[in-house]
């Protein structure tokens, strides 16, 4: 397996506040990796660091052989890393289709994901292509957010709390979609508070607690007591 992205001894800061401490993390082509942990454990910080929204040490993050820790977000997306941010964060004054098109702003790769294939994957969005995103349901908004990220045809897709606030049936749909994306060769990181949901689909997982990796492995080899201990720090 080719390692796509590797974080080594990653420390991340918000001003003076340190949110991550020496995190080691890696993901290979074609796998879904879950990052679990309680509120404030540093999960989102890890994704933001990878996506370039937080500035890090130059060599703390490697994309293949390239050190990208200090790349700004607008350049990171050009490498093939896309983030579905927590809370969806769609552009409220843009229509569904415009939100998707903004996702393809870089225009570096146009296959496999373009408007047609995203609409095929989420048919409901095709019907609502000219609506403002503010009038969509939560599940539809999440589809737009994922579609928007896919439009850049990423090699690595980062998903931050995509099941939050959605009906279970919608969540199932979305995770089925992620599995398909993975099967297409894209690596996927899912950050979740819902351990069961996350582990069900993941090939591997990391458990963060207070900014440190407490546990990692495959879902099958970890028993729930160990995970609970790593999650809550008991």
């Amino acid at each position: 397996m080719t390692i796509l992205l590797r974080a080594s001894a990653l420390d991340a800061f918000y001003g003076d506040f340190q949110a991550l401490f020496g995190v080691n993390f890696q993901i290979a082509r074609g796998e879904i990796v879950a990052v679990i942990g309680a509120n404030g454990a540093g999960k989102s910080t890890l994704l933001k660091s990878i996506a370039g929204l937080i500035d890090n040490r130059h060599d703390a993050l490697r994309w293949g052989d390239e050190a990208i820790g200090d790349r700004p977000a607008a350049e990171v997306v050009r490498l093939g890393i896309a983030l579905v941010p927590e809370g969806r964060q769609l552009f409220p004054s843009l229509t569904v289709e415009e939100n998707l098109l903004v996702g393809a702003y870089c225009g570096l790769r146009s296959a496999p994901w373009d408007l047609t294939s995203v609409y095929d994957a989420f048919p409901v969005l095709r019907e609502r292509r000219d609506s403002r995103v503010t009038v969509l349901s939560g599940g539809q908004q999440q589809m737009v957010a994922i579609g928007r990220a896919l439009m850049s045809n990423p090699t690595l897709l980062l998903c931050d709390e995509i099941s939050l606030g959605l009906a279970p049936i919608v969540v199932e749909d979305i995770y089925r979609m992620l599995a398909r994306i993975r099967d297409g060769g894209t690596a996927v990181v899912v950050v979740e508070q819902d351990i069961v949901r996350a582990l069900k689909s993941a090939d591997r997982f990391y458990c963060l607690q207070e900014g440190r990796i407490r546990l990692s492995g495959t879902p099958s080899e970890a028993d729930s007591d160990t995970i609970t201990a790593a999650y809550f720090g008991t």
Partner: protein
Amino acid sequence: MMDWLDVATQGILLGGVYALFALGLSLVFGIMRLVNLAHGDLIVLAAYFVLFTSSMAGLPLGVATALAIAAMFVLGYLLQRFVLERVLGDEIMPPLLVTFGLSVIVQNALLLTFGADSRRLQAGAFETGSVSLAPALKVGLAPLTTLVAAVIVIALLQLLFYKTSIGRAFRATADNPEIAQLMGINQRRIFAIAVGISLAVSVVAAVSLGVRANFDPSIGPARLLYAFEAVIIGGLGSLWGTLAGGMVVGIAQTIGARINPEWQILAGHLAFLAVLMIKPRGLFPGAGHDAR
């Protein structure tokens, strides 16, 4: 009866001029929340640029205008990259003060270079030509062209905003700059282009100003105020609203001037204050992309 029609016509035409003044201001506020207090003086600067390249260096007005559009775009781009970018942030005071300082600098630099004399752009027969819209209703060719220019500029900007990739990038950045970066949008570049476009549009305003009336280095702040009134009356963030706002100011000024020539400007200000009292968010709030 005909007199009122005339007042309305003249007011609407004047509104076209004010809308042109206002478009650049409206644009940068909509995209980056920048209130550019130097906007009026930059329009006057553009007018002097066209004056210098046409009347003094002998280029045709059209060529001089095109040249000025390119030059002002570059000026705007650099201004944002090297000056404004450093002070744009959560605090409202720094950008206000920097643009205010810029206003004083531009004004006095023009005064030192060109003196305080009134100038005018030479546009030949165009300046004084007129067309009859109806019996007994003649309108000047220059004012009519200005209004048409304002409509064309707005239409072009709307096209840019709603039909192009960079337009979507503008709107996405206005909505949420951080997330826009995740799409690969370079916010610094987008903002610099926005200021560039704002100043490029101001050239159109400058030419219409210079052909219609005399200008001198000190008239910038007054243009800023008319522009500002048009933006606020129209409702923040709506370009067509800005055109309507310009017309409200224009009609108010024309009515004021009919009653007493000294009341022209005051009538415009009072109309603005009245709208502020009755509809503080403008006549067309939230039209276009809303300004939060």
